[in-house]
């Protein structure tokens, strides 16, 4: 969707490998694997998807990953999740996006074998969390949104204990915890009790714990909250690398810019309903703001006014924000600006793809659950605020 990127360097990656992984093309087409239909998204015939499925995934690609079909869960009167259907194939990072109270954490708890769905089915790496919780637990790494740690234990002890809870022998567990401490950069604190950790440090410990048994499916609930920018970059790289190794990652976050850089698919959820693929596509196509910058601000202003954008464009000292109906329009405007000699230095959507779709879906009302037997009752915008 990001058709035009001028003067924007590809994102740097510390290990230099991310670009080479097949899951991470330079300009990344965002495939939205959401879909409430009974057919799992991985069976849809998007060329890229089928391509991935043949190559990626340790289980041959057909049983791995996460598949959620028509899942519902309520707590008493409160319907936390009403209709969730999506799938994440192995080797993919999916962002789980939705407003507060949309049911993201409930969904993750069901995936993490902690809650039973009232209806629908879940498959994680081919196993059912309700009837085969042990098989699922051996394969998932779950990072909860609540940060808990055994306060009196040292970081090292906490990780070793977690490893041993997965049946690792003592030596293997302590070797593993030492490696993870390096991975999440907690070495200076390795022998301090976990109660002295700051929020961001606890977050990193929690991530290390989720990785302790080398799970093939990772469920990360708000992993970046509390992290400093350096740790966020490292988290992003780590997640991409894990996906490159064929692992499945589902990340929920409010920081959409962050997901933008990490995720290659997205699951939009609001009011406990995941958005249908066509709604997402429509939202992605809708009019959006584009930010234009030029080396010569005055010339940009003149060119825009001359092109008839004088009344709709918001022009300030940083450049201009121009509403455009489609990417074709954007391409056309860019070509025009360049042809009249405006030194354009940047031409990009003002908000990220995820944010754009997210805002658009929420503006349009609850995402329609296509072919749902119990269509989501329309709920006014206030309820979701």
């Amino acid at each position, binding site marked *: 969707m990001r058709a035009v990127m001028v003067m924007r360097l590809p994102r740097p990656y*510390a*290990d*230099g*490998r991310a670009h080479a992984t097949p899951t991470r093309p330079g300009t990344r087409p965002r495939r939205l694997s959401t879909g409430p239909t009974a057919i799992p998204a991985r069976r849809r015939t998007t060329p890229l998807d089928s391509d991935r499925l043949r190559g990626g995934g340790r289980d041959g690609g057909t049983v791995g990953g996460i598949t959620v079909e028509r899942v519902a869960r309520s*707590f*008493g009167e409160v319907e936390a999740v009403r209709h969730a259907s999506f799938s994440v194939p192995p080797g993919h990072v999916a962002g789980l996006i939705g407003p507060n109270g949309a049911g993201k954490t409930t969904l993750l*708890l*069901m995936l993490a074998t*902690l*809650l*039973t769905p009232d209806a629908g089915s879940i498959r994680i790496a081919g196993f059912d*969390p*309700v009837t085969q*919780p*042990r*098989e699922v*637990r*051996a394969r*998932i790494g*779950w990072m*909860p949104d*609540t*940060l*808990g*740690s*055994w*306060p*009196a*234990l040292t970081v090292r*002890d906490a990780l070793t*204990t*977690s490893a*041993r*809870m*997965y*049946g*690792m*022998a003592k030596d*293997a567990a302590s*070797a*593993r915890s030492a*490696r993870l401490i*390096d*991975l*999440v*950069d907690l070495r200076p604190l390795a022998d301090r*009790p976990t109660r002295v950790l700051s929020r961001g440090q606890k977050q990193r410990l*929690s991530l290390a*714990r989720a*990785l*302790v*048994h*080398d799970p093939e499916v990772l469920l990360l609930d708000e992993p970046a909250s509390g992290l400093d920018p*350096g*740790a966020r970059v*490292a*988290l992003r790289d*780590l997640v991409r*690398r*894990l996906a490159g190794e064929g692992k499945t990652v589902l990340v929920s976050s409010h920081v959409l810019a962050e997901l933008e850089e990490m995720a290659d698919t997205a699951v939009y959820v609001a009011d406990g309903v995941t958005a249908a693929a066509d709604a997402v596509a429509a939202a992605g196509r809708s009019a959006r703001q584009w930010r234009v910058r030029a080396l010569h601000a005055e010339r940009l202003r003149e060119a825009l006014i001359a092109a008839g954008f004088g009344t709709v464009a918001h022009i300030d000292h940083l450049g201009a924000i121009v509403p455009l109906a489609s990417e074709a329009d954007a391409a056309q405007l860019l070509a025009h600006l360049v042809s009249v000699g405006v030194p354009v230095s940047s031409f990009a959507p003002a908000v990220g793809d995820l944010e754009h779709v997210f805002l658009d879906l929420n503006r349009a009302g609850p995402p329609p659950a296509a072919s749902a037997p119990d269509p989501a009752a329309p709920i006014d915008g206030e309820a979701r605020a």
Partner: protein
Amino acid sequence: MSAAPGTTPVQAPTTAARPDEGFLAGMWLIVTLDLKQRVRGVAWYVLLGVFVLLVTIVTGLLVLATNAWDDGGGGVFSTIVFFVLLLGTLVSPALSGNAINGERDAGTLATTQVTLITTAQLVVGKWIAAWLTALAFLAASLPFLVFAVALGQVSAPTIMVSVLVLAIELGVIAAIGVGLSGVLTKPLFSVAVTYLVVAALSIGTLIAFGLGGTAIQTTVRQTYVGVDWQALEQDGPPPAGELAPCLPPDIREYPTPRFDLVWGFLAANPYVVLADAAPGTFDEYGSPRDLFGWIAVGVRSAQHAPETDALIDDCATWRPSGEYVQPDVETPQDVYDRSVPSWFVGLTINALLGGAALFWAWRRTEVPARRLPSGSRVA
């Protein structure tokens, strides 16, 4: 996060899942985890110190009060054991009553439950850890018990049985505490309810016994035959071999409580279990040598229904020589010996109570959770 994550392998060194991991290994992991956390806190040591101080004071006072140097320490020993049980029941709920819901509040329960540790391993491990913690208090009181034994006259079976039963009772209380912490959502509430259960067992059973016995009353018909002192004065003492002149039987009726119908309440009392389980030792007059014995005799004599048709015949035992003929009265030892030992009934009731609490906690804590109590979260 490492600055160069590419240098660090992400693969685990061994395969993570070993499905046949033994129940005991996983449970023991939970026990050691729990104990490690307790031992590294200060609170536990403070409690232990206060406990030792209190037992020291009580022992000192007991020795002075009971003249224990002379009479052999049976009383001191039994009182110290009771005191340890009292303190154990006071401390144990605080140590165990938030074992599970406290972890849920701290956010560490769910992260354990997503591992290969089963809920049964978790609950049982928590219980064993709480029990071991309570046993540390028993261990701290051992020097005082040894001192009491050193005074002499406490039999080896008494020592062994009473310490063993004490340990089991502490386990029961730990089980109730851990169980309730799995059933109730709020730690404060579950600790309070654990205290209430302990109070119900220790004091409630006494109240139920007392009130229940008095509420159910039976009318006793007592016949009294006295010596006719007037006739005796007029006629002089009867010739040898003849009976004294007797008054006509005086019959009176009065209500009496039926403790024999409610003695089962007392059986569930931990103190009674402890006292009744210790083998009774009696002196030459048939009187118990220690506190255990007196309580056991008291509880066992409550088993017997009052005689509804009692006859007191003073006239029959009167001798003109003024010699006092001892009426055929039972000694405490006789009562003890002809009654049913109640301790195993009480111990079974207590063990079932603890086991049920643990089972309930296991059912309530099992994940994936189908139904959640209102106001609670899984994680």
